[in-house]
């Protein structure tokens, strides 16, 4: 049977991708950022997941205002890096796992989640920057990826509680998939940032630290945080943090925090946070 062995939380700041793609990862400004993932790279090379369920949001790349799915699961064989005005990121094509993705779609719909199934979707920095942070610059990504796109651009996004519940439903789906697979789930986006208005540049390190603490030790409390609280404390784009709750919901309540990186200096406009959680006995 398939099994969720671990969860990863990480910011998906676009400029991290730019720094890597333009050979600036060793620059003094960027070095400490990438070094924060040195442990994680070794850890994941050791864990060798077969599939990563990658929870992220699209930033007006694959979806515009014409159609806004709350939860969209990518069931295709592959996903191309999305076009931007600057061009697509020079990273490998993302290979999907259609059998597991469709199985998750079916299982969660029967569990009364109203998923949108997507068979054609380009993936932007929200999905590819986490892959770069965890895997560096390989010729091919070393595992299959199931994109799970969450609306956090158009308010209202799903509630934190709904995200947490979806995580639980995804876990159930994975555990009923009839093939031995090591599955990870990643929650991406955040941490505190605000990209518009007179309050742009907001960073709330104290909130972020508490968020990391609760993500690890008291996710149920986190699931009750309201949208207004996110926006007030973590900035208008800090709402992305709800996606970490999908990851957390898919893990054991008692999952172990085995690594944390909370970078003190905002990366471009955004606070960077990263955590690895392992299920016991995995």
């Amino acid at each position, binding site marked *: 049977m398939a099994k969720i062995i671990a969860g990863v939380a990480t910011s998906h700041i*676009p*400029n991290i991708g730019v720094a890597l793609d333009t050979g600036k990862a060793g620059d003094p400004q960027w070095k400490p950022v990438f070094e924060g993932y040195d442990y994680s790279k070794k850890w994941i090379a050791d864990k060798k997941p077969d599939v990563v369920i990658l929870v992220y949001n699209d*930033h*007006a790349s694959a979806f*515009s*205002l*014409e159609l806004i799915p709350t939860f969209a699961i990518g069931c295709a064989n592959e996903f191309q890096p999305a*076009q*931007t*005005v*600057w061009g697509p990121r020079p990273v490998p094509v993302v290979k999907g796992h259609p059998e597991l993705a469709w199985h998750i779609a079916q299982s969660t719909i029967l569990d009364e989640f109203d998923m949108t199934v997507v068979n054609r979707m380009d993936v932007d920095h929200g999905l590819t920057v986490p892959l770069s942070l965890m895997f560096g610059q390989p010729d091919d990504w070393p595992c299959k990826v199931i994109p799970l796109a969450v609306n956090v*651009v*158009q*308010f*209202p996004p799903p509630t934190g509680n709904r995200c947490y519940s979806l995580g639980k439903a995804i876990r159930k789906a994975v555990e009923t998939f009839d093939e031995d697979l090591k599955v990870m789930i990643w929650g991406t986006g955040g941490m*505190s940032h*605000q*990209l*518009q*208005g*007179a*309050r*742009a*540049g*907001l*960073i*709330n*390190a*104290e*909130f972020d630290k508490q968020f990391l603490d609760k993500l690890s030790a008291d996710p149920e409390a986190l699931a009750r945080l309201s*949208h*207004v609280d996110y*926006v*007030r*404390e973590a*900035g*208008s*784009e800090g709402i992305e943090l709800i996606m970490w709750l999908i990851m957390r919901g898919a893990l054991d309540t008692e999952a172990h925090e085995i690594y944390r990186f909370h970078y*003190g*200096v*905002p990366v*471009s*406009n955004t*606070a960077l946070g990263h955590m690895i959680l392992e299920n016991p006995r995995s």
Partner: protein
Amino acid sequence: MTSYTEAFQDIPGTTVFDIHRSRLGYHLNMFCMSLLKVENRESFKANERAYLESVPMTEEQRQAVMDRDYARMISLGGNIYFLGKLSAADGVAFGDMVASMTEGLKEDYARMMSVGGRSIEGNRSKSER
């Protein structure tokens, strides 16, 4: 009873892209989205006004685009991820576009970010201020 969208209005200097703003800014944002295509960027750059007039947005929105007044575009229903396609089409870094919406100078913004960003203290609530 405070409605869902009203509750955000207590937060200073912040515009939440809610259901009302999405309707207001639909064509402005879809115009920005159109700039993802190189042929559209070229025709926009060749004649900005003509391109903007082919999109059913308001005259105020057109003017804000012409002026590259991002704070104004936000107030007219723009969403930051859509507006980012316009600034990118100008070759402007996303962070500089963001900085242009704040009250200080671009240099002040960079300095603020390099020392940990804008503080939350005093920025939580209009009523608390």
